């Protein structure tokens, strides 16, 4: 029975590998089961619909952030971009009476431009995007406040409600849009050469450059994409809230980042998937929703979210160091 220990250890290895690969999904599953037991109101179609709609806005923005993060960058300014575009769109609709068919594309363009500015600053100043977008975040938000002039802007056409409040076959419209964007993003990442370039940039920027990738153009494009996607979120959020307020969208980047990190997208870049990201988003959604159901005070919700993030990322890092050690031990033997 000499084989048995070897067989067992290989089985253990396989389970370990699965655990590692699907750790975020496991966490989500555990949370879902746990909360189903704790509250009968949790696992209902009604509640699930609300849960997903709650996170759909952050989920859409997170897709943009994911692209930037896989390429090795980061965008902290999306919340502030939304503050700005949200107010401008409000003014266009409520005061200038710009028709939707024009106002929405203008908003999307605006978001794209804000992203391009981030991109240009990061390639021209050659400063880490963390700092660049920290700076632009403050600027965009400030501009939003200036334009808003402390107004609560109301009086939008009713036809604008559909984006944030409507349903398509019983599914909330923002959720539909989230799914569509997630599918497109996944396709781009996995099946197109553009997706390869994104991974390459995060995996080894210099090697990508030497292989002929226009690194600067890629960076600007990715920030622009991130801005464009956040502008979509902005339109949906305004339609949902149906009043132009500077508070809309603020802090959304933290949910996006948390989701990305929970979903296995590292700060280093070069790895990540839409599947992981969506899992991360749902973990946040489940925590938010369940704690609201259990009427946890807001502050303790923050504590729990933060703790989950640290535990998940800490576990991931621990696994990686172990993996790295195994690799080092293995490589020389191959010779």
């Amino acid at each position, binding site marked *: 029975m000499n084989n048995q220990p070897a067989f067992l250890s290989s089985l253990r290895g396989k389970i370990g590998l699965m655990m590692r690969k699907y750790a975020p999904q496991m966490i989500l599953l555990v949370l879902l089961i746990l909360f189903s037991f704790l509250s009968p109101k949790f696992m209902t179609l009604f509640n699930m619909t609300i849960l997903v709609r709650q996170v759909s806005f952050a989920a859409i923005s997170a897709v943009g952030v994911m692209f930037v993060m896989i390429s090795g960058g980061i965008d902290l300014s999306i919340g502030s971009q939304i503050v700005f575009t949200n107010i401008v769109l409000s003014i266009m609709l409520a005061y200038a009476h710009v028709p939707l068919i024009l106002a929405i594309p203008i908003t999307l363009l605006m978001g794209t431009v804000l992203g391009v500015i981030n991109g240009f600053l990061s390639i021209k100043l050659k400063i880490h995007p963390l700092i660049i977008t920290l700076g632009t975040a403050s600027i965009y938000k400030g501009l939003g406040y200036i334009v808003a002039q402390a107004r609560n802007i109301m009086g939008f056409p009713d036809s604008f409600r559909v984006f944030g409040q409507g349903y398509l076959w019983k599914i909330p419209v923002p959720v539909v849009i989230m799914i569509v964007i997630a599918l497109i993003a996944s396709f781009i990442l996995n*099946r*197109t*050469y*553009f997706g*390869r*370039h994104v*991974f*390459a940039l995060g*995996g*080894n920027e*210099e*090697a*990508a*450059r*030497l*292989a*002929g*990738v*226009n690194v600067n153009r890629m960076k600007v494009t990715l920030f622009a994409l991130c801005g464009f996607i956040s502008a979509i979120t902005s339109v949906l959020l305004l339609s949902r809230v149906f009043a132009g307020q500077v508070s809309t969208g603020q802090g959304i980047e933290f949910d996006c980042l948390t989701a990305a990190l929970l979903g296995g997208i590292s700060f280093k870049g*070069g*790895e990540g998937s839409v599947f992981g990201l969506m899992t991360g988003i749902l973990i946040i959604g489940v925590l938010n929703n369940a704690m609201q159901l259990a009427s946890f005070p807001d502050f303790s919700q923050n504590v729990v979210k933060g703790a989950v993030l640290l535990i998940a990322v800490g576990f991931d890092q621990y696994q990686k160091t172990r993996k790295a050690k195994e*690799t080092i031990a*293995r*490589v*020389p*033997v*191959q*010779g």
Partner: protein
Amino acid sequence: MDTKVVLSLKDITKRYPGVLALDHVSLDFLEGEVHALLGENGAGKSTLIKAVAGAIDLDGGIVHIGNHDYNQMTPHLSRSLGIEVIYQEFNLVPTLSAAENIFLGDRIAKSFLVDFKTMKSRTKEIFGLFRVDIDPGALVRDLSPAQQQIVEIAKAVSKNVRILIMDEPSAPLSVSEVDRMFEIIRQLKQKDVTVIYISHRLEEVFRISDRVTVMRDGRYVATKLTKDTSRKELISLMVGRELTEVYPNRASTPTETAIEIKHLSGNGDRDISFSVKKGEIVGLSGLVGSGRTELAMLLCGAVPLEGGEIWVDGKPVKMRSPADAKKAKIGLLPEDRKGHGLFLEMGVKWNICFPIIRGLSKNGVVDRKKETQIAQKYKEQLDIRTPSLEQRVINLSGGNQQKVVLAKSLAAESNILIFDEPTRGIDVGAKQEIYKLMCELANNGSAIIMISSDMEELLGMSDRIIVLSEGEMAGEVKREQFSQDYILDLASGTF
């Protein structure tokens, strides 16, 4: 001369997986001598130093120092015995002052406050010994490489050094700076400090050393009194082994010019002109810092040209970015494979097809069938040993990684190939394969530029050798004139 032995090595052995880096090396060092250690890359010089400095664990042998036998050194022990090492990469904190660096780790303090005044005055004292004028308060990052090196030496002296080991100390220095360094070494010698001087510049060895020890393939070869030996003898001791690596024969007869470089300047190189024909392998020789890799970077568009022209197939090429080089079918196999050539976390197929992934796409969507075909083709052609095409390249051996880098260039249909140190860090068997592949490529009409610090490999593989020295062309050597001596002379600028 005093003949007291200060450090004696007996049967020092160090094994790395697959390599015997040090094979029973025994060697004595005398008090107050300058002892040069000579050998090719991979001869074991650096490993020997690390053994003495306690940077690696020994697999056998004894270090005898100060009437004690040690079968294992540690960095701390080595320090406490008065051994200091100045590595090629300086060990200084750029944002601290010279004085702070020199006394880093020492407590020069009044109660709990650092006593900067004493620190500075003691630094001045040490600098005074060397008759150099460096402001002790100057930040290290503002100092020149030569001044930084003096700080390194001062650091060693402040620690009451008995044995100072210098690894390729002249590499970052200009000629006049080397002179000053030698002066400092002579002063240390007068204080009975033993200096172990590692270099591959023979000329320096003759200028400064009392004795010289030659190592080869991890083994001790011989120790000579410098005044009793000659260049010729040392070279033959260094590389005198018989040609165990057989370089494949080539049948190609170079015909048309593939690439012509006209008065190329930039990236530290000045006015470099030569051409490579199809089917030809041209070696690029030179010392560390002679501008070989810098030239490769110019040729593959990684660094902008400052002057001159690159002609490919009889037409001038505008070289503004690596994409232009790719279009001109120039491919680089970089010296730093992992940093510049590979996406380590990605798979074999992913890596091979990356440079051409856009061409493999229809409307932006990658044709995955074609991708697999191409990767499979090069896996077989180059015999890349990997369990699958999806295997992450970080898990491959050095030789197979190099093949993946080569496959990348071949997939891009590059026919002007620049191999920068193609066999560095690759074991002997895989080296042979790389040589064979290079010859096959040349036979099939590729033009190859080969940069290498391994003289034997360069002589064995090249049709011609271009020698660079300090960023300029020092000469072009035809096969009939091939000799190690001649090329080393050109490279060190003796002519």
